[in-house]
C-alpha cells in the first residue's frame, strides 16, 4: 500500500498511489484558500475552515533548475523546481517533470502527476506530488 509523502497535503485515492488529490482549506469567513494543513485561516485567523480538494491544473508562476541539490534529495540532479499557482489561489513548490529545460516557460499550463520516490538513504519510499506540462 503506497504512502503519501505528506497526508496533510496529498491524499492518495488508490492502493497503488498513482492517483490522488492535493488538499487544502477554504476559509468560510473570508473565502481564501490555502494549500496543505491549516487550523486557522492564514488571512483572517478564523477557525471556520472547510477542508477541500484543490485543482489538478496549475500555471507555472516561476521555475528554476537546481544544480546543487539540498541534502537528502533522492531524485536526479539537476532537477526543475516549479512554483505553481493553483486556480484557487495558493502556490505550491514541487518538482516539474517530463519537460525539457528549453520548453519551460513562465505561464505554461501544468497538471498534477504523482511519482513514487525512493528515499535518499535509510528512509522509505513515498508518493510525491509533482507537475508536468499539459
Amino acid at each position, binding site marked *: 500500500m503506497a504512502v503519501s509523502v505528506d497526508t496533510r497535503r496529498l491524499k492518495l485515492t488508490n492502493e497503488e498511489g498513482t492517483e490522488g488529490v492535493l488538499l487544502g482549506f477554504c476559509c468560510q469567513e473570508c473565502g481564501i*484558500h490555502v494549500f*496543505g494543513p491549516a487550523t486557522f485561516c*492564514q488571512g483572517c485567523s478564523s477557525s471556520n475552515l472547510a477542508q477541500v480538494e484543490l485543482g489538478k491544473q496549475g500555471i507555472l508562476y516561476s521555475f*528554476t533548475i*537546481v*544544480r546543487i*541539490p539540498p541534502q537528502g534529495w533522492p531524485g536526479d540532479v539537476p532537477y526543475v523546481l516549479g512554483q505553481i499557482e493553483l486556480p484557487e489561489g495558493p502556490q505550491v513548490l514541487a518538482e516539474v517533470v517530463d519537460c525539457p529545460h528549453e520548453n519551460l516557460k513562465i505561464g505554461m499550463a501544468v497538471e498534477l502527476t504523482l511519482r513514487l520516490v525512493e528515499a535518499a538513504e535509510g528512509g522509505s519510499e*513515498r508518493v*510525491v506530488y509533482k507537475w508536468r506540462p499539459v
Partner: protein
Amino acid sequence: MTQFNPGREVVVAGVGLHPFGRFPEKDLATLAMEAVLPALQDAGVGWKDIPVAYFGHVYYHGMSVGETALANLGLTGIPIINVENACSSGSTAFWQAYWGIATGIYDMALAFGAEKVPRGPVTVTPEESPERYIGGDHMMAGYALRMRRYMEETGAPATAFAQAAVKARQNASLNPYAHRKQEYSLEEVLQSRLIADPLTLYQCCPTSEGAAAAVLCAADSLDRYGINKERTVRIAAAVLTSGSYNGKGSDHSAFSPYRTEPGAVKAYEMSGLGPEDVDLVQVHDAATIGELQQLEALGLVPPGEAWKATAEGRTALTGDIPTNTDGGLLAMGHPFGATGIRMIHETVTQLRHEAGPRQVKNAKVGLAQCSGAGDVTTVHILTK
C-alpha cells in the same frame, strides 16, 4: 501605526566585529567573545556595566551559548537571552536590546551574534521533514524562483544582477573583515558555476563564520557611564515584522517571499524620515535578486526599477543610493546570527565617517534591513 511608543532616545555607543570567513580553530563562543570585547572597548564601558545581553545565533552548538561566551568576561548574573530568527537573529537581538532600553527597563544593553554556518545548500525545515522528498526547501532555489519571475516581469537582463555581485566584491576588496574580497568581472560572475538557474555561484552569498556586537545605551545615561557622545549614533527606528498574508496562501513550509514593505512603512513612520532621506543602505543580499527586491520594497527605487539603478551604478559607493557598502552578505559572507549586527557595525562606522576608502560622502542617515526565513524582517534606521 508604530509598534510601540518609544519612551526614550537610544543610541549605539560601541560596535565590534570579528572577521568573516572560516575559523575551524575557534568555537562559537570564542568568535562571539572576540566581537564583544572590541564593542565594549569602543563604547568605553566595562562588562560589569552591562545589565542585559541578547545573543543571536541559529545553528545548534550546545545550549545557552550566549551565557557560555559571556561567562568568560565574568559571571555577573545578568539576564542573557539567546535569540533565533533565522538569518535575522542578530538584528532581532539588536531590536530587543533597543526596546528594552526605549521602554525604560534598562539603561544599556549588549546585542551580539555569531555563527558557524556549515557548507552546502541551506534548508529551513528539519531533517525528518517531508520536504526532503519534495525538493522545495532550498534557500538559493527560492531566490532563483524570484529572480526568474522578476526577469520575466521587468525584462531585466542577467548583467544587471551580475553588476550587484561585481559591486559587492569591489566594496569588499576595501574591507579587511570580508570573507570574499576577490573582485570579479561581469563575465566571470555570469560564468561562475550555476547553483539554481539563473543564479550563479558568485551571485550567492557564501556560507561563513563570524561575529558582531553592539553596545546600546539610553541617551540620558551616557554621562553616567562616561560614554563619548561624539561617537554615538542615534537609533531612529527599530522595527520587526513577521509574515503577513500576501494573497497567495503560499506553500509556507520553506519558501518565504521576504516581504519587507510593511516593516519599511513602520520604520519610516517611527523615524519621521522617508526613503529620500536615506544616505546609505544595508540590505539582505543573500543573492543578487535579494538586493534588488529589497531596494524596491524599501521604496528607495520604484517597483521594477532596481535593476536599472544597479546597472547604472547608482548603488555603488559613489552613487546616489550606496547599497551594501561593506560588501553585503554577498561578499562579507553570511554567518546568520552575526549579519544583522554586522549591518549595524557598518552603518555606525559610515555615520561616524570612519569607513576609510569605503566612506560614503555626507553620510547622516543609514538604513539596515535584514530578513529571515519565516518572513521575518527587521528595519533599523540610524542617524547622526
